């Protein structure tokens, strides 16, 4: 068949399809159903773990410069080391530290869960739900332990 015939056949079979500048057709997908009623939407425990994994990753990235600053103070001189010890006594420092430890613990546990699933451990639904619960609760437990130590 000549190329012109193919082109004609394509355009005739999909009359509303658009084409790229090089002539290739773009198939526009049918609109997907969207359901965003927050009072009725189902969030399985694994979805919660997944969302929290993302959020805690961003929190860790934003919090890391503060950790670096603390590390710098702790190493630069005996004076700056004492300065950091003084800062560590303040309430805002403790609250930030506990929040950071929650983020780190959750991210670490959820990440460990992914690594185990990658090698075939716990990827069936019941196990996956259990480990999702474990990651969510484990992060909070670690934060509570940290709170017990620093507060």
């Amino acid at each position: 068949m000549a190329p012109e015939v193919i082109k004609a056949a394509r355009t005739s079979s999909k009359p509303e399809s658009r084409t790229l500048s090089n002539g290739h057709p773009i198939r526009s997908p049918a609109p997907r159903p969207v359901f965003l009623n927050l009072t009725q939407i189902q969030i399985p425990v694994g979805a919660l773990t997944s969302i929290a994994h993302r959020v805690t990753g961003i929190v860790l990235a934003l919090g890391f410069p503060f950790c670096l600053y603390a590390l710098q103070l702790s190493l630069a001189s005996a004076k700056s080391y004492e300065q950091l010890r003084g800062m560590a006594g303040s309430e805002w420092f403790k609250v930030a530290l506990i929040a950071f430890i929650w983020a780190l613990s959750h991210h670490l546990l959820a990440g460990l869960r992914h690594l185990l699933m990658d090698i075939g451990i716990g990827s069936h639904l019941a196990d996956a739900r259990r480990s999702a619960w474990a990651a969510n609760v484990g992060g909070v437990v670690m934060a509570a332990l940290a709170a017990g130590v620093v507060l």
Partner: protein
Amino acid sequence: MNRSLGGLTPWLIQRLSAVLMLAFIGFVLAHFLVDPPASYEGWRSWAGEPGVGIAACLFSVALLAHAWVGLRDVTLDYVKPLATRITVLTLIALALLGTGLWIFRILWLGRA
């Protein structure tokens, strides 16, 4: 699918760096539980040990790579317009590069 945006490489980087960071965090945590540094001198001399320095360097490289893949994935998911996307990715890359230089400076300070 654009090969430079997806595929095995970022997936593998994310997992290898995660394992490396887990090992380092375990090592530091164990040290702090068994033999917590009691003073500035003790802390500094531990941080200045060559083994600790090398491990910290490896950890830092893993962390920067891990942060890049993670923040990149989040950006690709939520920032669709190309110009904004490139801007955001550039800012993230610059921030991570600056963080890398800062880490290098601190680790050097710790060894001096």
